Every structure is written in C-alpha cells, then in structure tokens.
C-alpha cells in the first residue's frame, strides 16, 4: 500500500490534489456554485479564445471543481479570457464562468504567475495610466507598452493613419475637477490594502 504513494502510473490522486481552501476561496470570491457545473462544454463550445488557450475553459472549471490549484492558476487561459461573456450567457447552470476566470486571474497575480507577460504588462500599464491621469492616456499607454513589452514596432504602422485623422492626442485629456486626485486616492488605498493583505 505504501508503494502506491510513489504512483508509478502517474494517475492523479484526487484526494491528495484537492486543495479545499482554494475551492472555497474561488467559490466565495466569485460567488458561484461551482458544484453545479456538469461539464457540458457549452462554455468551451462558444469561447472565441479556445484556439489560444492551453486548457479549454470547461476543463479550467473542472480543475477548480476538483481543487487542483496549481494547474488552474498557472495556466495561460485565464490570462487570455477577454470576458466576452459568451460562457456566462450560455451556461445552462447559471454559472458566471467569466467571473470565475476573473477570480482565477486575481489569484494567479497574487501567486506571482504571469505566463502571458504582455497581457499583464498591458493591464498594468493601463491602470498606471488611469492612476496617473484619472483617465486613460492612450498615446502614453501605447508608448509605455511598446517599450515594456519588447515589441516597440508592433503598432508603429498605425501612427500615420492616426495622426492624419487626428486620433492621436499627445497630451492626456484629464478630468477638469477633483477627479484626478480622487482616482489617485482610490489607487493608493487599493495598494495599501494589498500590502495589508500581505500579497503572496
């Protein structure tokens, strides 16, 4: 019996793999009844991003259901979900699948995973822009992203078309009143809270 622990067949030990704290955290942070998923696959069937996923969304749900924390949090799929809501809309069990994907991404961030670094760079850049200006400064964001992502020329070709059509503002369009300061304060409190929470 002791030998079975070495698991030469590489079967998945369901009991050993189950992280109950993880199951509970996903359930409470997403507010969804994960046990109600019966693996019909409708989320995957309608998901426009399945092509780029390493694990299709219904299997992500299955991993969460079984409590396989590591595989769920380290996958790329959760970073590539665009929250297009096809899965949530069509789930026959009323599960807000997109919100579960969101929650997994939050957890992955806290756990330090970033298998899609450009996605994280873009998101962080976007929010930094909002924190600084109160609104998104598109040109600034594009410039920062171009540098940080290591793809400086990807969108360079768009420049002329945008310039000639007056679509590229070189100065941020900031809110006229207290808005900028208030948004900055929201971010400050958010980062303070994160520190409190003792990010993993």
């Amino acid at each position, binding site marked *: 019996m002791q030998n079975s622990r070495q698991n030469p067949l590489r079967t998945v030990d369901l009991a050993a793999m189950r992280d109950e704290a993880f199951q509970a955290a996903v359930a409470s942070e997403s507010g969804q009844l994960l046990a109600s998923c019966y693996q*019909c*696959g*409708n989320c995957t069937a*309608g998901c426009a991003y*399945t092509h780029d996923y390493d694990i*299709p969304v219904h299997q992500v749900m299955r991993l969460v259901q079984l409590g396989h924390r590591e595989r769920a949090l380290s996958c790329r799929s959760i970073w590539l979900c665009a929250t297009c809501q*096809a899965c949530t809309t069509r789930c026959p*069990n009323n599960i807000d699948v997109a919100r579960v994907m969101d929650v997994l991404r939050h957890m992955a961030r806290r756990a330090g995973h970033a298998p899609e670094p450009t996605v994280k760079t873009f998101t962080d850049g976007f929010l930094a822009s909002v924190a600084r200006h109160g609104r998104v400064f598109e040109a600034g964001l594009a410039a920062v992203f171009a540098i940080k992502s290591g793809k400086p020329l990807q969108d360079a070709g768009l420049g002329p078309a945008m310039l000639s059509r007056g679509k590229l503002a070189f100065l941020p369009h900031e809110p006229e009143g207290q808005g900028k300061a208030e948004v900055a304060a929201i971010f400050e409190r958010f980062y303070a809270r994160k520190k409190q929470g003792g990010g993993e």
Partner: protein
Amino acid sequence: MRIGVMVCHCGNNIAATVDVEAVAAAAREFPDVVFATDHMYACSDPGQKSIEQVITDMKLDGVVVASCSPRMHEATFRRAVERAGLNRYMFEMANIREHVAWISLDRRRNTEKATDLVRMAVEKLRHNRPLTAKSFDVQKRVLIVGGGVAGVQAALDCADGGLDVVLVERKQAIGGIMSKLDKTFPTIDCSVCVLGPKMVDVGQHPRITLHTLSEVEEVSGYVGNFEVTVRKKTPYVDWTKCTGCGACLEKCPSKKVPDSFNENVSFCTAINIPFPQAIPKRAAIDPAHCRQFTKGKCGVCQKVCPADAIDYTMQDEVVTEKVGAIIAATGLDLFDHTKCGEYGGGRYPDVITSLAYERMLSASGPTAGHIKRPSDGKEPKTVVFISCVGSRDRSLDRPYCSNFCCMYTAKQAILTRDHIPDSKAYVFYMDIRANGKGYEEFVRRAQEEYAVEYVRGRVAQVYPQAGPDGPQLLVRGADTLLGTQVEIAADLVVLAVGVEASKGAGSLAEKLRISYDHYGFFLEGHPKLKPVETNTAGVYLAGCCQAPKDIPSSVAQASAAAGKVLSLLSKDKLESDPQIAMVTGNRCIGCGKCERTCPFGAIRMREMRDGSQRAEVVETVCQGCGICSVTCPVRAIQLQHFTDSQLLAEVNALCRTWDETSE
C-alpha cells in the same frame, strides 16, 4: 377520561435521536393518561395488537400514538382502535419522526420537543368527541381527461372492466403525440399501427362516450359523485351526419392553413380531418382560416358535402357528466425551441424540432416519408441532432431531464440512415439516459451499426454558412472528451426539444383541486407508494401530466390508474369524512361571508321561519378545509375534529411548556 400513549421507536428512525422511554415516562404524568409505553414498531402487527390489547385491558377511551406522519399511518391506527371498540376519532397521532427525529440530531431537545408534541396530542384528545361517517351512493362512471395513449389505455381498461367511460379530448381526434410518431424505440414499430387499433376500439366501445374538440370547464362534487361540465367546441359540421368521406377537404379553397398535426411543417385546408386514421374520422372547420368566417362568403364545403353535414351556424355545446372518478391524462407540450436563440430556432428554417422531423419521417407526413429540409426541399446528407434543448437547463428554468429524448434521438438518427443511406448523423449529448428494457442496446446499435457519431458536449452556436453545394448550417460545439471546440457543417439541425407540462395544466389542476409543481406537472399522492393517486380522493393520474415519461411507462400508469378506479368504484357506497364544517345555528348571524369564501361551494344560506338567514353546510361537498371557520365573524362555524377548543387545547399545552422552560 382514560388515555393510553404509545411512543414508537420506528426502528432507529426515531429512537436514534429521541429518548422514547423518557417521552413515554413523561406522558404518564399528563392528565388523564393512565398508560404509556414505547414500542419498536407501533404500526407492525404486534404493535397494533398491543394497542388493541391495552384498550381492552385498561378500559381506555382514547389513544395517542407518537410515531410518523399521519399521512403515513393515521388510517392504520384508526382501524386498530376501531377493532378494539373505540370510535376512530378518539385517536390522535403525534408526528415525532418527520417533525422531530429527522430534522435534528440534538437528542435532549428532540426528546423535549417530542414530549411537547405528545402533550399537545393528549390535550387535543381530551377534547375529542366521537364522530360518525355517513355513507353515500357512487356513480359507476369515470371521466378521463386527455385522449393520448395514456387516456386511450385507461379508457379501454375501465370500459372493459365494466365502467362507463367519458373520454374528453381537446383536439379534434384522439391519439395524442403517439399518433404523430413515425416509429417507436427500441423496436422500430410503426407507431400508428400499434396505436391505431386501440383508437378504433375506443371509437367503437359501447361503454365509451367520446367528446373530442372538448374541454373540461368545471368540476364540482367529490369522490363518487363528481359533476363535470364539458364544453364541446363546435366543429361547424354535424358529426352525426358527417361520414369522413373527405370531399370537403378536396374542394376547400383555403389551403394555406398551417397544419398543426404536422407541426406546422406543411399546410392543410380550413376544413380538415387531421390524419387518415383519425378517430373520430370527422371533418371540422377552423374558423380562423375559413373564408366563410373570415370573409363572410364561400360556402364551398357546404355545397359539396354529400351528407349535408356542414352548418356554419352551429354553436358550442355544454354537456354535464356525472362520474365517480376522474383520471387526468393531459399529456405534454414541447419546449418552445425559439427560446434558444443560439441554435437559431425560429430564425433558420433548417433548424427544426424533433417532432417536426418525426412528421417528416412518417409515411403519412407532409413529405410522404422523404426527408427534405424546409429551406429548399433538398435531401440532407449531414444531420446534426442536439440533445437537451430545454432539458437539464436551469437558465431556462427547465432543470429536469425530459426522460425520453435520448432514445428518440437515437431512433431518429437510425431512421435518418435508413432513409438516406449515404447520410451521416451526429448527436451532441451530455449523458445518454437509456435505462429501459433494450434501450442501451438500441443506442449501441445506432453507434455501431448505423455509425451515428456521438459527440459528448453541448452546442454553443448554429449559423448559416455557404457550403460546397449551397447553404449549410455551421454547428459549433465542444467535444469535452477531446477537450476542444468542434464544428460540423450540417444540412439539417434537429433539436431534441424537452417536455413541458401541457399548457392549461395548471388551470385543470385547480378545477380538479389537485396539486401541481412549479413546472405544471401534477403531483402524485406519494412519490413511492401512491404514484397514480393524487391528494384529492377519486382523482388519478396517467402519463406525462405527472412527469415526462415514454410510451410504455405512460401505458403502465394508465392501466394502474384504471385499476385504482375499478377498485374504488367496485363498492356501491362510499363513506363520507365526518371532519367537516358544522354551523351552530343560534350563533349564526346570517352575514353570508362563509358562503362567499367557501372554495367548494359547500355552504348555502337557508331562510328561517322568522325570515332571517342561516348558513348550512352541504356535508357531502364540504372538504373540511376550515376557511369558513376562520371567516365567520362570530365563530358560528366549527370544523369537526379541529374545533377552536381542540386547537386551543393544543396551543395551551404547547405554550404552558414554553412558559415553564423559558423561565
């Protein structure tokens, strides 16, 4: 008064979480209790014997049994005390199983609560009076609502058993869904060939009165003596003259009427006989489409009818039938596939329901048994079946399994290959439920012999797309076993739509005073032990009105219901329940509120000699619901066996203990 108490262990059901000896000991201290004991199974033969014995030995004049729900064994114990010479209403039951033992594990508090319930029962019993049932004559006739296969079977069984049967069917002909089917699983029998002879028997049986195009309008009365009003909608054709020759159908100029028998895949005439084997084979006019009615002139059918049967001035007829029992067999409706926008139902003509496909497969159907897709009449080479459309879907408020879609889908996939040998069928499924005799083998045949490709997953989207030979439908789904998205270019998509309770089931249930669930399915008396009874005496269920079920189950339940009716009506007289309302004449002020609130029409006002009004209860109609009693401003109406004094005694018994424990 001398009262005996027996506390039941119910094996471990009660004894595990209630100290039954302590409850019995406590009961010995209650007023008038001269004997109290516990017993392993009070309802068992020895248990009942010991109750009888104690009644005789201790000269008891009342018994309390603390055990299960009265719904379970009240009748059992009443019979026991009666055998020992007591009036059956000198018995009370305390439910310490469902109300105590099964809902909490706290032994101490359970024991306290059980003691409270026994104390209440004793106090109630101390206020009980012997009541005597009256007996009344019964009508040896039965009403069957719905003429599908269940109704047909029940009608034949009852009639063969010697009862007169009234069969009411909403449509023009009997046969229901089964008459629309091409073949039946798992034997691939011709559906209408099996059903047809039974339908003919119904039409010819001397004991069966058939009302088609009819609906039950009102039901009054009670078990043994129901009075049912049936509205017979006018067919505008005198059916005593009509011979079903069909001459009118040929000449009718209004030929573009959606043919509901063919699931609106094709058209029929405004005067119509729905299908060749129809019983009764009589023509009826659909006034919504008949030119005589819509335009005010035509009269063609009247001119061509050789029997002179057409009468545009005919009116609905209302008939009253007196029956002793009723069987509801109202069947099912199909889920509305247009609610599933992702499949394009209702938007794309080549996305059809399974029943429409069934009509297409049928030799008597709109395409004479040739599969042609609706958009261009082409023979499809790739047919995709999607299971669970409107079943097992909480987002559509249809969480239940529709029971037979897996099977008919396998059948239709097989028939597709039978009709078009070079075709390919795909089935998107979540689970295959094939739990009848020969069912699993049938599904395996579809997969192995007919190469039907089963894809485990749901479909997210169907949309039109240009194919090599003209327009096709792209079906995008998932194969969860592969873990990928899959797609198939299909020529025809068949939605295996689920089952819903028949529209109007709720209102019929209310007329019959039976319960129905959230989805409109009628509730059986007990899910295990009373599967064909309802909680209203004399009303029984058969077929899909109770839950989705396939043909053999419907037929079995229909025969069971018929058996129940035959046994009920084998008696010449039935006993009435004495637990009914009674008016104390000198208290009644004649305001008439009780008459207005009584849901059963069981109260009438009577003029006294001094001209004043007094309420009076019609004993055989009263169901003992007690609404009148709470409505009466001066408490002149009391419900026997549940009088104010009796209830108050229980409340006081409970509150007194509450006072003591809370201080």
